[in-house]
């Protein structure tokens, strides 16, 4: 291997690459030394004035999972945007006009009114014609006019993006374009609208990039890279997730489970490859003068576990319960049976909501409306819920059943009901408790995990999808 990377004389690009790789690593991408050397080698073979080629070269050598690509893209923009020529592929006259417009703003602080209308008009025209070069130029104009960026202010790009987009009112523009369209059948209308939405999305991304570039110019790429890095969806904590993040998690569940299901079933088939089949091995050996050339094995008979899920769905942990139920049902082909129960202070069975249903979303929404889980006041009461479960559904748990209890173990100072849990534990094959809180918070305040713990085969901290996946993979 050529070790050119290490002894090359310092050059700005090399240092940039170094910082870039570090930033990628900080964001959670596993970038190894080999890959950095590859990246360097790749850059030498690439025309680095072509920004897209540079991005592709770095992407191919440093990013080995598509899920990491968005993070890579953002950081690439942060690190390599200043090197971009100010105006690639854009008609120069437009730039001049915009530069004038920009300087006007700079002089008296607020944009002249007619140029705002002009901008809107140009934007409409560009959206209608699908002129990407002009859209890119207009993105710069729009940011200059509407984002109200102030040097040194420590807000993130989202705030500026929001301000710009709110002022542009792209939705209305698309409606207007559609009103003037010649499309007649519903299909044509839909196709045309999607075309416009695509272009608007392109504009949005361009605006985002412009803002990022200006932020870099203002604060430097190292600082910005740190503030920009967001956790990957599988690392977002359930109980602190924002609405956007919940949506991201929701989208990440399905691909994750598909992979996990494939892995589990594969492993089950391999784990027990069956005992040696003496008879067949011996019979086969006759062909080779009695030498058992190829041992034969019996076909394995896979045994699938039976699952009972008991989930706390009170406000604080509802999101956790929802995703875990979704997750378990998505891999239910690996279990012989899944039954699910939800509780707050009362308990109810919800298995029927998931059976014969393709649409997991609706099933989960129906839990909230249809399950009868409130006994007294609608605050979690594990003691009562566990007791009620044992009395009403105790038969659901047998010697082949693995029980999963989902909840934070915060009991609002009610009685713990640990004896009911102990009974369940004794009847079941295994019993696990999954808690969405960090381990360090357990047993503080009204959390009484310590009382439940002796009656579980394991208690697990499951704050993120990643931890959930790991738990399932280790356990089943």
């Amino acid at each position, binding site marked *: 291997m050529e070790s050119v990377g290490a002894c090359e004389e310092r050059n700005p690009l090399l240092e940039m690459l170094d910082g870039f790789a570090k930033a990628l690593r900080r964001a959670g991408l596993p970038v190894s030394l080999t890959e950095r050397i590859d990246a360097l080698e790749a850059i030498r073979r690439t025309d680095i004035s072509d920004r897209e080629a540079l991005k592709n070269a770095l992407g191919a050598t440093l990013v080995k999972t598509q899920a990491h690509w968005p993070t890579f893209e953002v950081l690439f923009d942060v690190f390599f945007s200043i090197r971009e020529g100010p105006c690639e592929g854009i008609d120069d006259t437009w730039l001049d006009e915009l530069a004038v417009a920009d300087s006007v703003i700079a002089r008296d602080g607020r944009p002249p009114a007619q140029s705002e209308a002009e901008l809107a008009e140009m934007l409409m025209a560009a959206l209608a014609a699908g002129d990407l070069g002009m859209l890119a130029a207009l993105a710069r104009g729009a940011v200059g006019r509407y984002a109200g960026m102030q040097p040194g202010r420590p807000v993130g790009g989202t705030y500026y993006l929001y301000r710009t987009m709110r002022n542009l009112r792209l939705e209305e523009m698309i409606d207007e374009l559609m009103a003037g369209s010649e499309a007649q059948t519903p*299909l044509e209308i839909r196709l045309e609208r999607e075309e416009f939405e695509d272009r608007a999305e392109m504009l949005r991304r361009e605006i985002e990039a412009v803002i990022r570039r200006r932020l870099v110019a203002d604060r430097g790429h190292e600082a910005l890279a740190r503030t920009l890095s967001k956790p990957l969806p599988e690392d977002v904590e359930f109980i602190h997730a924002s609405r956007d993040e919940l949506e991201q998690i929701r989208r990440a569940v399905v691909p994750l489970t598909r992979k996990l299901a494939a892995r589990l079933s594969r492993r089950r088939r391999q784990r027990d490859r069956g005992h040696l089949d003496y008879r067949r091995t011996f019979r086969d050996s006759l062909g080779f003068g009695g030498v058992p050339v190829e041992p034969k094995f019996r076909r394995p008979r896979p045994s699938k576990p039976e699952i009972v899920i008991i989930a706390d769905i009170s406000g604080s942990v509802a999101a956790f319960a929802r995703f875990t139920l979704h997750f378990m049902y998505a891999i239910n082909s690996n279990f012989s049976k899944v039954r699910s129960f939800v509780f707050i202070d009362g308990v109810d069975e919800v298995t029927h909501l998931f059976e014969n249903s393709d649409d997991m979303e609706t099933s989960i929404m129906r839990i909230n409306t249809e399950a009868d889980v409130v006994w007294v006041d609608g605050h979690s009461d594990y003691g009562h819920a566990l007791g009620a479960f044992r009395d009403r559904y105790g038969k659901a748990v047998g010697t082949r059943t693995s029980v999963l209890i989902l909840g934070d173990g915060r009991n609002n100072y009610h009685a713990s009901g640990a004896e009911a849990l102990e009974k369940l534990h004794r009847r079941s094959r295994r019993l696990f408790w999954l808690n969405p809180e960090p381990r360090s918070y357990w047993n503080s305040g009204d959390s009484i995990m310590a009382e439940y713990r002796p009656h579980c085969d394991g208690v697990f901290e499951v704050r993120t999808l990643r931890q959930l996946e790991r738990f399932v993979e280790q356990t089943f």
Partner: protein
Amino acid sequence: MGGKFESSEDVLRALAGVRYLCDKRVAGAVYLADCLERPVLVEGPAGTGKTQLAKSVAEICGARLIRLQCYEGLDEGKALYEWNYRKQLLRIQAEREERAWGDISEDIFSEEFLLTRPLLEAIRAEDPVVLLLDEVDRIEVETEALLLEVLSEYQVSIPELGTMRAVQIPRVFLTSNSTRELSEALKRRCLYLYIDYPEVGREREILLAKVPGISDDLAGEVARIVRSVRRLDLRKPPSVSESLDWARTLVMLGAEQVDPEVFDETATSLLKYRSDTERAQRELAGLGAR
């Protein structure tokens, strides 16, 4: 090999010459793989032309394509090499009386008794070859290790014979449908390329290039409808090969444009689940309105 391609534009042009229309990211990865002598790991949804990429590269280089279809349970004997033990046994039995064991054992572990499998074959090939490891994600993590020596050193070690080095470095493509994460060790040795569904404009070009007799308008409409259908939350979104099938069907039926009846008649070539078809008809109002 030493860089048969001049630049990534060169790759792009050459691939277009064999009617494989791709974007700069794809061409760039192929070009870099060529320069750095690294395998390319290609991921992406099914039916976006991952396997076709390897075939097309083989075509433009005038190379022989050696393909190893991966599956669960693939082992050394199927991927690398195997000793032809039946033949070995015969030899032992034939010469049992006459020769000393030492002579025979040396004899039976010679190349005469070696069955080469795709990986070894690629290494030993004297003519240019493209090695395609299709659907690597189907083999077990442990089996991946078998590939590592070939992928990083372009050699195969056979204990009885010694190490076989590549006569010339083969171009290697691995494809994966990402049903599982591949190991870090494997990824580290490869360049990574993700091939997504093409954007509308490119899909239109692909349709025009691959479907004989299709009109400009119809290609555009097919591409736009397919984009729209892919956005629905379907069990199996239509792949490029399916949109090609659909376009061919439309051309065969002589349809000039897509209306509800035509869609009803032809939907099976685009969508493979009943629920998906119904959903598409419902959502793209005006399709299947009747």
